[in-house]
């Protein structure tokens, strides 16, 4: 989970690299002439598979759990039923369909959260790094406050407060709708990533805004906003993209942790984490129910981490923790 927060490790790891001097004024560095290795292709392939599967399978596959159960397919695991290699769960749901639906929710939540975090955190970091001094001080204190609460505990509290109960028109308490919970998950996990994304953006912005071409643009009369967006931002983007990939992986795992504590996605939505949480009681008799989503999470995180590293290497990105 967040235990090996690649973001924080990545930050520090790359602080150690010695950067090579860049040509001034370049928006994009010339990519190295290096073919992608087999690992990168595997990672890209897996992620594409997940994306395509998540989009198409729920649309195209129609599987009625009761009908499957009546046909005797329930609790039939890997390779037990011809034509359905991933098996069926205890209630008769087709595992492939569950995994695809799970991919939808897991990706929706993680990409949504990181996008939210990038938009807010990235902007704040850009502003802090560009304007420095007072603004930077205030924003940094804000980031420190957010960072002072352990990430997972903060996310947990946010979800509990905003999406554990809803009050309906007659004043009765009841659990929130599945959609609302998903929105709150995106919001909560996004908020948690804001300080880290902000700091990385800030560090990169600090470094880039010292460069001559930025000063040149300002000397030519460009406004601060224009300079920030047109000169600094494009150079900061590769770092943010790399961190975004790593961050998506972290959020996928975090959602899993939240599901085990009962505050993940709500039925009828399914996520890989909620599949693990629900099937964990049957681990002894139907281990594949738990192992299949674990494998999906594993490969997704592996691929995202790998690609994040590749992006970093390619663009020779430098990120500092200081």
């Amino acid at each position, binding site marked *: *989970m*967040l*235990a*090996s*927060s*690649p973001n*924080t*490790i990545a930050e*520090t*790891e790359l602080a*150690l*690299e010695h950067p090579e001097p860049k040509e001034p004024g370049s928006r994009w560095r010339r990519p190295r002439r290096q073919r992608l290795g087999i690992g990168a292709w595997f990672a890209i392939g897996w992620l594409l598979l997940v994306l395509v599967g998540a989009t198409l399978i729920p649309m195209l596959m129609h599987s009625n759990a009761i009908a499957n159960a009546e046909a005797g397919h329930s609790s039939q695991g890997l390779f037990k039923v011809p034509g359905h290699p991933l098996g069926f769960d205890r209630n008769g749901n087709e595992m492939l369909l569950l995994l695809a639906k799970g991919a939808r929710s897991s990706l929706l939540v993680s990409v949504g959260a990181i996008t939210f975090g990038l938009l807010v955190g990235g902007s704040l970091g850009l502003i802090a790094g560009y304007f420095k001094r007072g603004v930077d001080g205030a924003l*940094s*204190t804000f980031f*420190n*406050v957010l*960072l*002072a*609460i*352990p*990430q*997972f*505990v903060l996310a*947990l*509290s*946010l979800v*509990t*407060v*905003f999406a*554990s*109960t*809803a*009050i309906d028109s007659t004043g009765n*308490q009841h659990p929130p709708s599945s959609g609302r919970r998903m929105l709150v998950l995106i919001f909560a996990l996004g908020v948690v990533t804001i300080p880290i994304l902000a700091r990385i953006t800030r560090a990169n912005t600090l470094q880039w805004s010292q460069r001559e071409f930025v000063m040149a643009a300002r000397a030519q009369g460009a406004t601060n906003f224009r300079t920030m967006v047109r000169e600094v931002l494009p150079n900061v983007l590769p770092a943010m993209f790399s961190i975004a990939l790593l961050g998506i*992986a972290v959020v996928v*795992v*975090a959602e*899993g*942790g939240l599901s*085990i*504590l*009962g*505050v993940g996605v709500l039925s009828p939505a399914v996520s890989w984490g909620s599949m*693990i949480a629900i099937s*964990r009681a049957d*681990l*002894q008799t139907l*281990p594949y129910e*738990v192992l299949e989503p*674990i494998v999906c*999470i*594993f*490969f997704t*995180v*592996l691929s995202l*981490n*790998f690609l994040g590293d590749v992006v970093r290497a390619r663009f020779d990105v430098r990120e500092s*923790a*200081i």
Partner: protein
Amino acid sequence: MRAALRRVVQLVVVLLCVSFFSFALLSLAPGDPVTAIVGFGSPAQLAKVRHQLHFDRPFLEQYWSWLSGLLHGDLGNQYFGPTGVQKVSTSIGQSLPVSLQLMAYAMILTILIAIPLGVLAAYRSGTFIDKAINTTAFGAIALPDFALALILSYWVGVKLHWLPSQSYVHPTDDFVQHLRHMVLPAVSLAVGQIAAYMRLLRSDMIATLQEDFILMAKAKGITNRRILWRHALRPSSLTLLTVAGLNVGALIGGTVVIEVIFQIPGMGTLLYTAIAERQYVMLQSLVVVIAVAYVLVNVFIDILYNVLDPRLRHARVIT
């Protein structure tokens, strides 16, 4: 001296903000907090509890009385039905040591395994051993700690019966059993950490090993082993320390889920219970206690960092 004073002021500001934030956050929870806490009772009973908990007062006044209570060690109450009451500080007093033990064991395992592995991988950089360690670490990071926990608790705990797969034994009751019960949870937490720290140490040491002073040491005839452990490791350990601070937060998060999976009565289980039972008062106090502990740990690490790195001892710390 001025720098230290500034840090202290900053610390107090952060702590105040954190406490206000936690309080405000949980006050936003929908629904009548009294019925959430007390369940059902007569309107008179509910009104009495509402008055006791100051829920009938304006927001800032509530915050102030809560904060002053907090500073006096009154962390509020946990409610059982209309009349049952237990102090949260008692529950925390019982659970915090358990969580601290678990995290300590995980950290000890991490240090004992990650450092030698990192040094080995850096020393043998580029060889098969290095590749093997690095790849395994990369894979280990991708496996969530709760997934590893489930796998271990099933295979090692139930199938093989080698170690207990749940619950907790107090160290004073039976130290051996205490350790046996902690092995699987600590290992689940540690594996991801080991991988991350190992990779970090490795890349850091590879950089350090290319520095001139290492070459100088080798020229002086110092053995490889001494170079590795006494000369190269020291600067690299600072990086580890920096990351350790940030990672304690992640460790805390991991502990919450691991405790629930292994049924260990620590702060994580307490948190889980507070959420499930909608005990918002208890939740507020728990979040604040965890945040304060976390901030203090980071301060401690900062101090340690300053002490260990002579370059920083006399320089201004830039934040």
